[in-house]
């Protein structure tokens, strides 16, 4: 545990340094707090809005968890299809790339028309944004399997499926996880995009909507407070995934001191 603390120390020190500089800049530089609130103002706003923040954090967390799951499954499946069929690769790859340039506001009214005003259209938006890193890195991982290993499997009369199952898929696993890690970090901003571009009913609609509503009424400090929550969520979830990665693909890195 003390090692964890030591690992976190540089980041904590840097954050404190930045916050201190920020605080001094706003306090001594005569900056209008509506334009840029000081950290202490943000902390006060967070304290006052804690209930709303917690509620919206739960909504956004749920969106990210489900959207990311959708994205990983879709990206992984698409990558396998692309890997196994050059026709699918040629047909789908350009569209997948193009999908990343979509301004989602153009899509969300239709999604709301089809799927209603609940969580579903938001999951589609998060999925569309986040499947891409998973798909691209999985495709690369699958085709990076050792050709000599595949050759060896051929001498053992392995079928196409067995070559995939015993060599290509496991050797792609670290790449899948790398893609998932990128997708996870992107997912938080994807949730923001999904929430702010989707028509919503009701007062609670996630951190993204809370930020936009606050900004529209020039309540900058609450907007920053919600942003800080997003910031922390990204860091925590990223580290949580790294733990999963160590479990699933521990063979990809040496494990000193660990034997059988």
């Amino acid at each position, binding site marked *: 545990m003390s090692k964890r603390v030591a690992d976190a120390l540089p980041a904590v020190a840097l954050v404190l340094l930045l916050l201190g500089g920020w605080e001094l800049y706003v306090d001594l530089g005569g900056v209008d707090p509506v334009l840029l609130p000081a950290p202490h103002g943000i902390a006060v706003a967070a304290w006052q809005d804690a209930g709303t923040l917690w509620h919206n954090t739960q909504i956004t967390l749920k969106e990210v968890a489900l959207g990311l799951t959708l994205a990983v499954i879709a990206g992984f499946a698409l990558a396998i299809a692309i890997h196994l069929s050059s026709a699918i690769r040629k047909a789908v790859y350009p569209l997948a790339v193009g999908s990343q340039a979509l301004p989602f506001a153009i899509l969300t009214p239709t999604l709301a028309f089809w799927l209603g005003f609940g969580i579903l259209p938001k999951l589609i938006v998060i999925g569309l944004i986040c499947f891409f890193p998973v798909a691209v890195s999985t495709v690369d991982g699958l085709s990076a399997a*050792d050709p000599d290993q595949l050759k*060896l499997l051929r001498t053992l009369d392995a079928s196409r499926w067995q070559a995939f199952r015993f060599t290509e898929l496991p050797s792609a696993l670290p790449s899948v996880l790398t893609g998932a890690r990128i997708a996870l970090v992107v997912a938080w901003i994807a949730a923001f995009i999904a929430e702010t571009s989707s028509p919503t009913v009701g007062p609670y609609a996630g951190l993204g909507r809370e930020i936009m509503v606050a900004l529209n009424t020039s309540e900058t400090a609450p907007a920053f407070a919600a942003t800080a929550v997003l910031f922390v969520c990204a860091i925590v979830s990223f580290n949580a995934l790294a733990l999963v990665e160590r479990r699933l693909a521990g*063979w990809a890195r040496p494990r000193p001191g660990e034997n059988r």
Partner: protein
Amino acid sequence: MQEQSREGFGGERSAHGESVSAGGASASGASAGGASAEGSAAEDAVILTGVSRNFVDRSGRTIHALRDVSLRARRGSVLAVVGPSGCGKTTLLEMLCGLQQPDAGSILAPPAALMPQRDLLLPWLSALDNAALPLRIAGAPKAAARAKAEPLFAELGLEGFERARPSELSGGMRQRVAFLRTLLSGKPLLCLDEPFGALDAITRMQMQRWLSEALRHERRTVILVTHDVEEAVLLGDRVAVLSKRPGEVTADLTVDAPRPRARSQQAVIELRERALRALGLEDELR
């Protein structure tokens, strides 16, 4: 035994048992003991007749990897193929394993398992699962494949390392697991591609002794490719010497000495010298 015949584009189909013409003047020229004349063709598990293989490199030049190679290996014997780097030894094995086709000549060989130069163990599988991989591929369930491979671990001095990942094993242990995987393929012909080339001298000597023991228990036809003349003489029933590219057979020696053989044995030293001479390395003998 299952036989499979593979022909190159220019090769005539050669029926099993048909007498195989000498590959070239050089093949019989340095032949010791005339083993190729003895024994009926039915006893030969592997017959290569006039095999050539060419590659085209990036600049479009044709590279002759092997030219007119004719070799035979009797069932249950060890044919050691020795030659300098780049003489097409790996190409020869890949053709035997059906990974490449000859451009000319014919290859008659039973189904072959390859033990590649790099052990190519799968890093995400345990040593036991790596060894049992051929059984899994043949359709055995995981537990059955493990149960079949497990007793062999003790025989190969690998007990206690069944669940270790390849990265946790020494080079010699990895080679033994790779050899076990080759054995468990159940194929009658084993193609060993410089199995000990990457090991240090001491481990290599241990592994040579170990392999010669292992082959005594497990009678399979073995093609052992090596650049180490001494290893070829210690382990082979016959030693074929290949020249520099394009690889041609410059000597085909029979090793009569009983096993296990010692480096210091007179017969071993003599054959080693003959093989080195065939490689054009007589200067190294002084």
